[in-house]
């Protein structure tokens, strides 16, 4: 049985649909019938070969980290999933190449969870990598209700989620964005928007928040 995957054969070249064998889930893995796969900032870097000196890449190289789809087969030692489960998650492969821009992907079960009931597959596929990164950012920054937090790239992939999560914690968010994102920042909860290209960002923050991060 074969399946379709988007893959490149060399760094920096255009990709195409490849007919490939359906991969087998190894111990601890799930075979996912992918319905949708989010595009992340790392994907263009994998395809361009930017990171080729830093990690192994495998060809034909199928990019893609995020996915939402349906569990099709279950590897040995995996518990808590059944064939047909609607799931989303992030591929944990230590090398780019066996990614999720494909009709089938094998992923470690640790990176898989039931799909949020309120989201369709495309929406769910948009979340995992940037959402998990945003949770890690919020844990590190630990914004408090009486604090102002400046979010650089507040309307970019990770920033969209960081801005919402910081707002949900009651913090005041100063969104540092490109001009194109200025309209979106208030929708995410930001109370203030600073165009990163308009001048000295530090000076703008000091002028608006002379007491620093304390509101």
């Amino acid at each position, binding site marked *: 049985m074969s399946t*379709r995957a*988007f893959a490149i054969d060399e760094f920096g070249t*255009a*990709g195409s*649909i490849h007919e490939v064998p359906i991969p087998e889930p190894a111990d601890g893995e799930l075979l996912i019938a*992918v*319905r*949708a*796969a*989010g*595009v*992340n900032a*790392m*994907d*263009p*870097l994998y*395809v361009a*070969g*930017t*990171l080729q*000196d*830093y*990690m192994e890449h495998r060809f034909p190289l199928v*990019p893609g*980290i995020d996915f939402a*789809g349906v569990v099709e087969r279950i590897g040995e030692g995996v518990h808590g999933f059944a064939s047909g489960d609607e799931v*989303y*998650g*992030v591929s*944990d*492969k*230590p090398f780019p190449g066996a990614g999720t*821009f494909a*009709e089938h992907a094998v992923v470690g079960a*640790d*990176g*898989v*969870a*039931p799909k*949020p009931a*309120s*989201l369709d597959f495309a*929406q769910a*596929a*948009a*979340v*995992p*990598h940037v*959402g*998990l990164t945003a*949770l*890690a950012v919020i844990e590190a920054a630990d914004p408090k209700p009486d604090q102002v937090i400046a979010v650089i790239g507040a*309307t*970019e992939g990770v920033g*969209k989620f960081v801005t*919402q*999560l910081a707002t*949900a914690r009651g913090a005041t968010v100063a969104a540092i964005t*490109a001009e*194109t994102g200025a309209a979106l920042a208030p929708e995410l909860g930001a109370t203030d928007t600073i165009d990163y290209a308009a001048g000295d960002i530090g000076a703008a923050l000091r002028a608006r928040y002379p007491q620093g991060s304390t509101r």
Partner: protein
Amino acid sequence: MRTDAATAAFEVIGLTFKGANRAPAERLPELTTLLDGGQLSVPPITAFPLAETDAAIREMAGGHVRGKLVIAVR
């Protein structure tokens, strides 16, 4: 240009990639709770068919994507 800048940045700050560098996935259920509870909303989706993945990757490389690019596999 972007590729060169990215490579230079990794070298300047001394990052070493020993495999993909990602946030731990065990917090996915936490994300699910936030999404289903309405505390986190998903940006508008721009969907590309699998055969047009190249176009999606090029748009991502250009930066300042307004919503989220998603490959609608099927």
